[in-house]
């Protein structure tokens, strides 16, 4: 089941296409493309894990981020920890104590905004897996260029040349900020502006999620 969203309204977010239940052996999976950037996420859980990794009050979430290059590196660990922290707040881990939930992200194409694409895809895969969630989340990224102007969802060459890249993750109920991470130097004013702009842009992503669920859950 695939869904397209070419509607970008007033915000220039890249067109998003996704397909849920893409993999046959996972508990939940999704493949999402935002513009030309594509990510594939597989979710498995609740799983039985080793005694040492078990936590008595909640489930242990493990995230694995695989790049196209294949060799794992230190920046990948950083991305994994961001995605893990975002998913941990979203999943109701206390309903699955002493078990494990594994989220595997595979980068297929990177033309800018890979981490945000991976986060959005992870949310869709979690929805597909049926795990209990506190809220859905949407990630939007923004680049601050040399003159202090903001560009939502920059392309790869613009993002690399930008002074700073800011990423924000918002939750679905009240659009409050869940995670924020950034690289580069920027002023406080630029941060506040980027935060509000991305918050408004996240509406597009949440509408997309709603369209996706509406398509394949047609009894609701």
């Amino acid at each position: 089941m695939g869904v397209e969203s070419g509607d970008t309204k007033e915000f220039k977010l890249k067109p998003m296409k996704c397909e849920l239940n893409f993999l046959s052996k996972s508990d939940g999976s999704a493949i999402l493309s935002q513009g030309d950037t594509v990510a594939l996420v597989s979710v498995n859980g609740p799983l039985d894990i080793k005694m040492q990794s078990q936590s008595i009050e909640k489930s242990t979430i493990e995230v694995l981020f695989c790049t196209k290059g294949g060799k794992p590196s230190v920046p990948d660990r950083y991305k994994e920890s961001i995605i893990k922290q975002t998913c941990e707040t979203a999943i109701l881990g206390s309903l699955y104590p002493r078990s494990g939930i594994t989220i595997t992200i595979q980068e297929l194409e990177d033309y800018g905004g890979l981490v945000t694409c991976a986060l959005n895809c992870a949310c869709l895969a979690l929805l597909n897996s049926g795990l209990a969630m506190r809220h859905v989340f949407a990630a939007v990224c923004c680049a601050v260029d040399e003159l202090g102007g903001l560009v939502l969802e920059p392309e790869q060459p613009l993002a690399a040349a930008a002074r700073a890249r800011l990423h924000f993750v918002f939750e679905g109920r009240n659009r409050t900020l869940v995670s924020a991470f950034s690289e580069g130097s920027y002023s406080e004013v630029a941060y506040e502006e980027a935060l509000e702009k991305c918050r408004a842009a996240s509406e597009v992503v949440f509408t997309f999620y709603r369209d996706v669920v509406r398509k394949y859950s047609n009894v609701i």
Partner: protein
Amino acid sequence: MSEIYKLIHPVKYFNDYISRNVRPDGRNFYEHRNIKLNVNSIQAAEASAVVKCGNTTVICGIKLELATPKAEDPDAGFLVTNVELLPLCSSKFRPGPPSDYAQVISNIVSDIVINSQCVDLKDLCIISDKFAWVLYCDIVCIDNDGSLVDACIMALISSLKTLSLPTVSYDEETENIKVDTKVRTPLKEYFVN
């Protein structure tokens, strides 16, 4: 007694203190811990610093090496930072390859130093496209009591401030390189006040 209480009802333990606007160790919310800083403690390193932030202890040592600059950036040297969280700093870490947490902290510290541009990599270049300095900054934590990134940055910047680069003389005809460790120039820092 409070140790047992902390294990069994951690949320209530912390809330009891927070509701009285104080932390479990007696500090206010906006108070810093005592900071102790000692530089040039490691003789074998070119520059070093030891920082103690409350109980968190972090050591930084900087070593210099010569290398050929990258082809796409012939005027830039290298700044390589690495953070190690030894098993002795906390019961959470085991001996072996760096844990995920250590790699994340390494990445954060490296990003902060490079993005702040406090060291201009062009200052590290000796001869364009031929020789440049590589600064290997090794940060080791020997006691982990929280605020690791803060302590690591403190130790790293203090070491960079005390670092001085030896002069290098290069003979073009014989392609001979001579490093004079006695004549030194301090490394230029760029800080925005």
